[in-house]
């Protein structure tokens, strides 16, 4: 009897703790998604404007690489762009997978972590490819 009561009270203590962890996690996700959205807003505008400006007279792959290779400012800008995507996209995917597809929280979170890793690795690899001399 006492064991049952003990288990029940432990459950009652664990539930608010889990709810608090969830509350803090959701709050963090919210502000990280807000901050990354602000960064992305600037990055997307600069990216589109830069593209339109750069190709206005036609541009070959060789010409692009001649401008980007060794250009630290270019590499830093797109590295920030990649990292902002890697923060922003997975948080949105957690909401989509849990609401639309009813994935359990753990599955949605691990899926999002996988997407984060893929975006960081593939994105930074792409930045490196156009920055590194002779890459």
């Amino acid at each position, binding site marked *: 009897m006492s064991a049952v009561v003990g288990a029940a009270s432990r459950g009652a203590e664990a539930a608010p703790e889990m*709810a608090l962890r969830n509350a803090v996690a959701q709050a963090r996700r919210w502000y990280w998604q807000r901050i990354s959205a602000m960064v992305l807003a600037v990055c997307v505008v600069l990216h589109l404007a830069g593209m339109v400006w750069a190709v206005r007279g036609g541009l070959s792959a060789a010409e692009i690489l001649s401008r980007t290779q060794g250009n630290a400012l270019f590499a830093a800008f797109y590295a920030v762009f990649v990292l902002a995507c890697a923060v922003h996209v997975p948080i949105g995917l957690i909401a989509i997978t849990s609401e639309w597809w009813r994935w359990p929280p753990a599955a949605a979170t691990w899926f999002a972590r996988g997407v984060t890793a893929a975006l960081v690795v593939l994105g930074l690899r792409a930045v490196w490819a156009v920055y590194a001399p002779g890459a």
Partner: protein
Amino acid sequence: MLVAAMNDKTLHVRIWRGLGADDDGRFVDYAVPRQDSQTVLDVVTHVQRVLDATLSYRFACRVGMCGSCAMTVNGQARWTCRTHVAKVVGADGVLEIAPLAHLPVVKDLATDMSAFFDKWARARGRFQGTLTRHDDFARVSPETPERQAANAGIECIGCAVCYGSCDVVQWRLDFLGPAALNRAWTLVNDVRDTDRTARLRAVAGDAGCHSCHTQGSCTERCPKAIAPTIAIAGLKRTVARAAVKGEL
């Protein structure tokens, strides 16, 4: 035959009839005499008093104060006592009246609002102060931003029109919903209240303010012109600040 009988003096009304979730509900057609300045609640009352006494629905004040007569009228949640038929009747002259969405139906147009009000309690929608009746009144300037934010949401009548209009409530049945979160926001801004941290914990998380997609249906449909969307955005900001400071 019913439609053929319709004219300017008669309204074609379709009312949802059924005994809750276990019963296959259906719309039943009625012909109701058209009146000047007729409200949707007038129409339902005519059906119940003249055409079919077994029709169940809920109302009390009939003047937009009690929040008990909300129904789905031609696909949108509305307070029926203050909704004129002329404003909402379709181009085909049909008035379709169904129970409020996202709540279990008790019978016909009456819904079980327990879940809706339980969520007000879950969001800690109860004022918690320190003063007793023996203390002097707390003096709160109406000019302060906190009091103005509280005043903006304080006139909620608990009609659940926002709740029945919210897509997130449909997706996540445990979502606290616009009305409960709006209530919590008024208390977060009440400088006399002492339950702030517990309330912020209660409204944060998966089933709380962070689930809101800011679609704004609640604000669009609120008959009292309250903006729960703004209240929920305020809760998100306040919870975030508390989390950063480690006060959550």
